[in-house]
C-alpha cells in the first residue's frame, strides 16, 4: 500500500503525545525509530517492486470504491522517499540521546513525523495544489521544530523563516492560480498540455518566474537564500540535519525539478536561468562559508553551495548531469545531515559553536572527529566517497552540454569547499586540546551509533556507487529525461 508512506507518519504523530503520558521517553523513542526503519525497508522492498513492475501510478481504494487520491510512485519519487527515510532514520537514532534535555519528546517526534509525512505526500502528489498543501504541512512543522529550543535566536530564526516562506508560498499560489485559470485543472499531466501552446507562451513564462522565485526561496538558491543561514544553525541539531539535508531538497529542488522537467519542459532559456542560479549559489555559498566562525553557519552556507550543484546539474539537462544531480541529492543529504549532527555533538559536549573556542577535540571525541572527516570529505567531493561520484557526474554532464565555464567553476568551488572543511577539521578537531575542553567527553551511545551509521552509508555508497546508480538513480533519471511526455502519459489521472 503506497498510502502507508503517508498514513504511518501522520497516525504516529497523532498518537505520540498520548503515548507520552504513559511513557515519557522509551515508547516515543522506540516507536519513532521503528516507524522510520519500517518505512526505509518498505521503500527499499515494496516501493522498489512497484517501480520496476509498472508505471507506479496508484489510485487509493476504500472498500472497493475508487477515491480521488492518486499517488505517483515512480522512480523519481521513490528515490526521494528512500533519501528521506534513510536520513530520517539516522536522525531519529541521534535524537534518542540528543533531545533528552529539550522537554517533551512526544511533541518533538510528533512534529518530526508530520514533517516526514508532509515530505512523503509532496513527492507522491500528482496535482499542483496537493503539492502546495503538503509543502505547507512540512513547512509548518519545521517552523515549530526550528523554534523548539525556545531561546531568543531560535524564536527569531523561526519567525524569519516563517515570514520568508510565506512570501515563497504566496508566489507559488499565484503561479498555481494562474495555471488553473489557463487550463482549468491542476493535474500535472493536464498542465503539461498547455505549456507548449504558442499563445500561452507569455502566460506560462510568468508562471515559470513565480515558480523559480517560490521554489528558489524554498531551496535557498542565491539570491533567495537569506533565511537559511539563520534558520538552520538555530534549530536543534537533528532538525538542522533534516532541514539542510532534506527539506530544502524536497520542498525546493524536488518540486522545482518535477515541475520544470516533467511539466513545463526544459527549454534552452529555462536551462540557462537554472544553470546561472546554480553556479551563483555555488560560488556565493562557498565563498561566504569560508568566512564563518560558527560551525553551523558554515555548514548552512555550504548547503546553499551544494544545492547550487544540484540545480546546475538539472539545468544542464544532459543524462550525466541529471544523474549526477539526483545522486548529489542523496549524497549531500547524508553527508550534510551527518555534519550537522556532529556539529550538534560538538555543541552538546563543549557548549559552543564557535570554531575559535574549539581545538584538539579529536583526542576527546574520536568518533565524532572520524565521522566528521567522512562527512567533510564527502561534501568536498574527495574520492572514493559518495560526494565525489555525484560531482564527477555533474561535471561530465556539463562537459557533455559544452558548458565549459560552468564546469570550471564547479571544479573550482569544490576546491574552496575542501578548503573550508579543512578549516573545520583543523580548528575544531586537530591541534592542541584547549584547557577549557579538558573535561569534554565523547557523545552518548545512540548519538555515536547514528553518526557511525550515516558515515558507513556514505562510505558504502562511495565504494559501491556502481550498484546504487542502476538501482536508485537510473530509474529516477529516466523519468526526468522523458520530460513532458511522462506527465502527459501518466500524471493526468
Amino acid at each position, binding site marked *: 500500500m503506497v498510502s502507508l508512506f503517508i498514513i504511518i507518519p501522520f497516525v504516529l504523530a497523532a498518537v505520540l503525545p498520548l503515548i507520552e503520558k504513559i511513557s515519557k521517553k522509551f515508547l516515543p523513542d522506540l516507536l519513532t525509530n521503528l516507524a522510520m526503519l519500517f518505512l526505509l525497508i518498505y521503500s527499499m522492498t515494496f516501493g522498489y517492486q512497484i517501480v520496476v513492475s509498472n508505471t507506479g501510478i496508484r489510485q487509493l481504494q476504500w472498500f472497493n470504491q475508487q477515491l*480521488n487520491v492518486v499517488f505517483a510512485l515512480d522512480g523519481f519519487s521513490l528515490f526521494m522517499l528512500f533519501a528521506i527515510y534513510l536520513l530520517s532514520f539516522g536522525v531519529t537514532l541521534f535524537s534518542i540521546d540528543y533531545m533528552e534535555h529539550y522537554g517533551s519528546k512526544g511533541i518533538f517526534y510528533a512534529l518530526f513525523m508530520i514533517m516526514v509525512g508532509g515530505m512523503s*505526500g509532496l513527492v507522491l502528489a500528482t496535482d499542483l495544489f*496537493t503539492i502546495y498543501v503538503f509543502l505547507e504541512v512540512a513547512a509548518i512543522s519545521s517552523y515549530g521544530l526550528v*523554534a523548539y529550543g525556545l531561546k531568543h535566536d531560535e524564536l527569531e530564526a523561526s519567525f524569519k523563516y516563517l515570514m520568508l516562506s510565506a512570501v515563497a508560498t504566496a508566489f507559488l499560489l499565484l503561479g498555481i492560480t494562474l495555471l488553473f485559470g489557463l*487550463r482549468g485543472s491542476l493535474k500535472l499531466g493536464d498542465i503539461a498540455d498547455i505549456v507548449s501552446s504558442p499563445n500561452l507562451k507569455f502566460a506560462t513564462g510568468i508562471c515559470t518566474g513565480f515558480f523559480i522565485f517560490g521554489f528558489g526561496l524554498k531551496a535557498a538558491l542565491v539570491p533567495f537564500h537569506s533565511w537559511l543561514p539563520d534558520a538552520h544553525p538555530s534549530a536543534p541539531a537533528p532538525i538542522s540535519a533534516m532541514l539542510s539535508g532534506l527539506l530544502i531538497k524536497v520542498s525546493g529542488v524536488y518540486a522545482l525539478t518535477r515541475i520544470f522537467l516533467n511539466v513545463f519542459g526544459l527549454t534552452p532559456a529555462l536551462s540557462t536561468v537554472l544553470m546561472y542560479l546554480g553556479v551563483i549559489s555555488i560560488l556565493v555559498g562557498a565563498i561566504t562559508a569560508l568566512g564563518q566562525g560558527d560551525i553551523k553557519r558554515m555548514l548552512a552556507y555550504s548547503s546553499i553551495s551544494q544545492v547550487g550543484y544540484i540545480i546546475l546539474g538539472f539545468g544542464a539537462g544532459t543524462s550525466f548531469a541529471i544523474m549526477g544531480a539526483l545522486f548529489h541529492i542523496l549524497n549531500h543529504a547524508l553527508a550534510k545531515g551527518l555534519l550537522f549532527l556532529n556539529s550538534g555533538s560538538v555543541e552538546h559536549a563543549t557548549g559552543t559553536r564557535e570554531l575559535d573556542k574549539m581545538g584538539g577535540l579529536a583526542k576527546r571525541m574520536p568518533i565524532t572527529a572520524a565521522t566528521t572527516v567522512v562527512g567533510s570529505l564527502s561534501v568536498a567531493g574527495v574520492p572514493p566517497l559518495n560526494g565525489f561520484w555525484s560531482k564527477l557526474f555533474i561535471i561530465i554532464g556539463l562537459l557533455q552540454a559544452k558548458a565549459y565555464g560552468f564546469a570550471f567553476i564547479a571544479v573550482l568551488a569544490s576546491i574552496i569547499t575542501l578548503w573550508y572543511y579543512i578549516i573545520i577539521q583543523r580548528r575544531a578537531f586537530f591541534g592542541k586540546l584547549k584547557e577549557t575542553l579538558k573535561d569534554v567527553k565523547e557523545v552518548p551511545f545512540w548519538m555515536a551509533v547514528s553518526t557511525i551509521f550515516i558515515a558507513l552509508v556514505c562510505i558504502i555508497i562511495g565504494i559501491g556507487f556502481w550498484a546504487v546508480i542502476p538501482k536508485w538513480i537510473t530509474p529516477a533519471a529516466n523519468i526526468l529525461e522523458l520530460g513532458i511526455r511522462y506527465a502527459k502519459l501518466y500524471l493526468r489521472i
Partner: protein
Amino acid sequence: MQELYLISLCALVIFSILAILLKDLLKAALSLMAASVFLAVIFFFMKAYYAGVFEVSVVAGLITVLFVSTIGLTKGEADVFESKLPTIIFPLFFIWFIIIDILIMWVLLSKFPPLHKGIPETGSFGEVFWQKRTFDLVAQIGIIFAGVFSVLALFRKKDKNG
C-alpha cells in the same frame, strides 16, 4: 458594484496594514477582523460564496474571539523595546511596492489570455471538497496537527536542566 468592490479592496489593504502597525494588540486584532470581513465581501463579489462564509465565520469570527480572549487574559508585564525604524520604513516600502505592483500587473494582465471557461474541476462545493480534492483533505489534517503541536511545543515546560 465595481466601486464597492474597489472600496472593499482598499479597505482590506488599509486594515491589514493597521493590523501590523498598531501597537495595541486589541486594536490590531480588531483591525485583522475588519480586514477579514472586507476579504469576505470580495469573495462574495467574486462569487466564491463558500470561501466568503469560511472567511467570516473562522477568521473574522472564531479567530478574533480567540485573540480577544487571549489578550484579555494576558497581563502586560513590561514594555518591550521596539525600534521605530520599521514604522517609518514599512509604509514607504509598502507604497513603493504597491506602485510597482500596479505597473507590473497593468502590463501583465493586458498580455494575459482569457481564462479557461470549461473548467473540468468544478461541481458543487461538497463534490469538489469531498470527492475531487480528497488527497488535500489528508494534507489539511496534517496542517492542523502541525499547527496544534507547534503551539504545544512553543508553550511547553522545559526540563529543569534543559
